[in-house]
C-alpha cells in the first residue's frame, strides 16, 4: 500500500528485491546508486555481515520529482537471500508495493530460485497478499556465466504461465538493471492510478 502524505504532498512506494542467496540483489542496488544522479538519490544503507552478505536489508531512496504536484519517491529494499534469514525477509515485505525477483542463471541455482519464489509466496501470504495482486517482474541475472541456463528453461520453472515480464541482466555490469526497476515502477504507478 503506497503511502500518500497529503500535507507534505508526497507519494511513497516500496519496491523489494527478492531472490535466493548471491543472486545479485545487493549488486542491483549498488549499481542503481552509482548511476543515478546525486540530487535524485539518498544515502544507501546496507546491513550486512563481514563477508558482505545481506543480514537484514539494503535500502536506497530514489526521488522521481513532482507529478501532479506530488513529490513521488521510491524506496528500494533488498532482502537477505540466505535461507535461514527468513524472519528478516518477512519483516522487509511489510507494506511492499512491488517486487523484483532476482533469479540466478547458474545451473546449480535453479532449485534455489524456485525455493526462494515459493518462500516469497509464503511470506506474502502472511500479509494476505499474493503475487497475482502485486506488481511483479523477474530479472534473470548473471547472463554472462558461460554455463548460464537458457532463458526459457528458467522461465518455465519460475513462471510456467509466461505472464510475468522477464528481463535478462548482468547486474554486475549494469546491464538489465534499469529495465526491471522501470517496469515494476510503472506497474505500481498504474495500479495506484486505477485505484484513484
Amino acid at each position: 500500500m503506497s503511502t500518500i502524505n497529503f500535507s507534505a504532498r508526497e507519494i511513497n512506494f516500496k519496491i523489494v528485491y527478492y531472490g535466493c542467496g548471491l543472486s545479485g540483489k545487493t549488486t542491483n542496488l549498488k549499481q542503481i546508486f552509482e548511476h543515478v544522479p546525486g540530487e535524485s538519490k539518498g544515502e544507501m544503507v546496507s546491513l550486512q555481515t563481514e563477508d558482505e552478505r545481506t543480514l537484514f536489508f539494503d535500502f536506497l531512496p530514489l526521488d522521481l520529482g513532482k507529478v501532479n504536484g506530488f513529490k513521488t519517491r521510491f524506496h528500494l529494499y533488498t532482502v537477505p537471500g540466505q535461507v535461514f534469514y527468513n524472519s528478516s525477509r518477512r519483516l522487509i515485505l511489510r507494506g511492499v508495493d512491488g517486487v523484483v525477483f532476482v533469479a540466478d542463471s547458474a545451473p546449480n541455482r535453479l532449485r534455489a530460485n524456485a525455493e526462494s519464489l515459493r518462500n516469497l509466496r509464503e511470506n506474502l501470504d502472511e500479509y494476505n497478499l499474493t503475487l497475482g495482486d502485486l506488481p511483479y517482474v523477474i530479472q534473470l541475472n548473471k547472463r554472462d556465466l558461460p554455463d548460464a541456463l537458457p532463458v526459457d528453461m528458467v522461465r518455465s520453472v519460475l513462471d510456467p504461465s509466461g505472464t510475468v515480464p522477464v528481463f535478462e541482466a548482468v547486474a554486475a555490469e549494469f546491464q538489465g538493471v534499469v529495465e526491471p526497476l522501470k517496469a515494476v515502477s510503472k506497474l505500481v504507478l498504474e495500479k495506484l492510478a486505477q485505484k484513484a
Partner: protein
Amino acid sequence: MLEPSLDLYGETFERVEAVLANLLVKSHGRYALIVDRKGFVLAHQRAVWAPKPPSLDSLATLIASNHSANLAIAQLFGENAFHESVQQGTDVGTYVEELGSEALLVTVFDGSAALGKVKLFTKLAVERIRELLAEERGPAPTLNLDEGWSDGAVALMDGLFGKRTQP
C-alpha cells in the same frame, strides 16, 4: 487495506507539527519524527538549536525496521511487545513510542536532555496526537490521478536513468 496509514492532513497536520515542536521545547530533544511502520517519515520537527540531522530517510527506515525486529523478538517469548525502546550512546540517544498500530513517534536527544523528561514528554505527545486524530475532521482529500499521471511519472523515470532499451 494492508497498511493503514496515519491520516495526517489539513489542519490536523499543522497541529501535530505543533505538538512535536512543543515536545522538543519541553524535553530539550533535538528532533521529533513520526514514522510509519514501512519506514516513511510522516512529519518531523527539529529544535532551533539542533545541528543538521542525518538523512531522515535512513533514520526512519532503520527505526521502523529495528522496531519491527524488536517486536518479533518479544513475540518469540510470548510477549506482545517490549515496553521500552531506548537507545543511548555517549552523545546521542533515541526514544521510540508506538503511535497506534500504524506509526511510531521518535525523539532524538543528546546529553543536554534528561532521559526521564524525554520519556515523559514523548508519552504526553503521543496522547495528544491520538486525541487530535480522534477528533471530528473534514473528509480526507482525494488524489486526482488522471490518465496523464502515470505517464508523467514514467517520463520522470526515463529521465532519471536516461532512455535505454533492453540490450
